[in-house]
């Protein structure tokens, strides 16, 4: 019990005490409301719906295919299909959701809905100040509150959004080229037995 170990420990805390005044390595506290850490690109909190163009409900990419509602582990997505169809970015007629609710008090921000969505319609947001005054109701976000423009999506997830936009442009060009080719080519003569 000769006390040398204790003295060595005390020197260690003294070094930290002095270090925390000048060594940036030692003092890593970020004083939250005033200073904020820069958002990390891959970060994910709760999902949001992406819409193209400027008018939210018209530009919604979601085609109410309810894959995300089935795959969501805690079952917090609730979709009602709307029979009225509208053309999507390649002109194909797609359905749209009449009701699209996400219960963010149940959502565990796992991001599986983003992975399984075939239309890139739902992406993970980075907003984490989600507390509301009212415990009931305010935590069920409907499609109006969930919808956010595509350039917001480009702002927060640059690389991922970039790839998706490039792919969508190509599809659009291919679709227009196909449509143009179909319209330009004379209607083929009614080949006999066409209705095979």
């Amino acid at each position, binding site marked *: 019990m000769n006390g040398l170990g*204790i003295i*060595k*420990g005390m*020197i260690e805390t003294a070094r930290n005490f002095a270090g925390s005044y000048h060594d940036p390595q030692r003092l890593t506290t970020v004083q939250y409301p005033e200073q904020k850490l820069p958002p990390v690109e891959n970060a*994910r909190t709760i999902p949001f719906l992406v819409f193209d163009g400027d008018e939210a409900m018209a530009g919604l990419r979601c085609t109410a295919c309810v894959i995300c509602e089935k795959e969501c582990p805690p079952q917090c997505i609730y979709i009602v299909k709307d029979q009225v169809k509208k053309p999507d970015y390649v002109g194909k007629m797609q359905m749209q959701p009449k009701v699209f609710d996400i219960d963010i008090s149940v959502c565990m921000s796992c*991001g599986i809905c983003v*992975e399984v969505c075939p239309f890139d319609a739902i992406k993970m947001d980075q907003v984490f100040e989600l507390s509301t005054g009212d415990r009931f109701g305010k935590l069920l976000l409907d499609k109006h509150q969930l919808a956010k423009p595509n350039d917001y999506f480009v702002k927060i997830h640059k690389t991922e959004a970039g790839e998706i936009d490039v792919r969508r442009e190509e599809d659009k060009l291919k679709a227009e080229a196909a449509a143009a080719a179909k319209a330009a080519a004379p209607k083929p003569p009614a080949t006999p037995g066409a209705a095979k």
Partner: protein
Amino acid sequence: MSAGAISSELAEPAAEHQLLEVSLGPQHPSTHGVFRMDVSLDGEVVVKLKPVFGYLHRNHEKIAEKCSYLGSIPYTDRLDYICSLTNNWAYAMTVEKLAGLVAPERAEYIRVMLSELTRLINHSALAGFLLQDMGALGTPLMYAFREREKILDLFESLTGARMMCNYMRFGGCRCDLPPGWIEQTRSLVANFPSFLDEFEALLTGNEILLARTEGVGVLSKELAVNAGVTGPMLRATGVNYDIRKVDAYGVYGRFSFRVPLGERGDVFDRYMIRILEMRESLKILEQALRDIPAGPIIDPKAKLRNLRPKPGEAYGRIEGPKGELGFYLISDGGPNPYRYRIRPPSLINLTILEDMCLGQTIADAVVILGSVDIVLGEVDR
């Protein structure tokens, strides 16, 4: 002044009614979660100690039977919520065994790196909590958490979340390493040893720590093996059993690292083994960072959504920071697993808690529980 001498001095046989029945927990500052120990004390010495579980039981296995294979992965983050990536890996590996999928090279290297980073987090946080139980008011814990923050930032930039990573899939990983991630990891691995030296300077020579941990909670080799104790607790007793070496799963066979073994199996050995294991993990990380290949990170054949493995069963296990974490899946051909079982290392390591605590004082019982390293999310499932 070993612990043995204490028990003989203090523990005169007390009449039954003189025992002080105390229930440590579930609301207690040092039970690492909602865990209760019904302790009966004779003065300060523990005479009987019965652990009680179930306060955090949400029947994760029943939920998994109703969920698809993909849907269970985010739930595995919530098992041992300090090391979410090793839980993911154990589950993904078992599903790969069940469905016959193989992860590409790059994904295996990323898995090894992430699980070794998780081991660093777990062991440093544990050393901090152990000292917190001994009464050092948060200083070691804050140093450990300062290092842990850097690793959590790496996880956030890769997987999107600090603790609930939900990153591994059966057949590989969800997304590739962002640019600059490997350089960040390399710099972290470079100056992590300075934290370990500082930690050892603060603690390992400290007389009070030696007095509080030497000869406390001794565990014999035979009892450890028979009671199924695994992980650092087992290696502290001297048994050479590390699943990374035994099964050499993933690409662990390609890395050269050593397995530290203790001698006496008391609390100090367990603390010291974890510190030495951190140094070994750093070696593995250096080698993995040096020769990680390029290439795809997920097996294209792996179907995410409705994976329906052929009827059969599979048991996969990995060397988690707390011990052998195993998953036992039975599939009946449907989209949901027929039976989904987790082998919780924390729960099984608690089997011999009473044997270690008898005859010690209540202050030791708290320190022994701290050295067992349990997380109630995994114990109660």
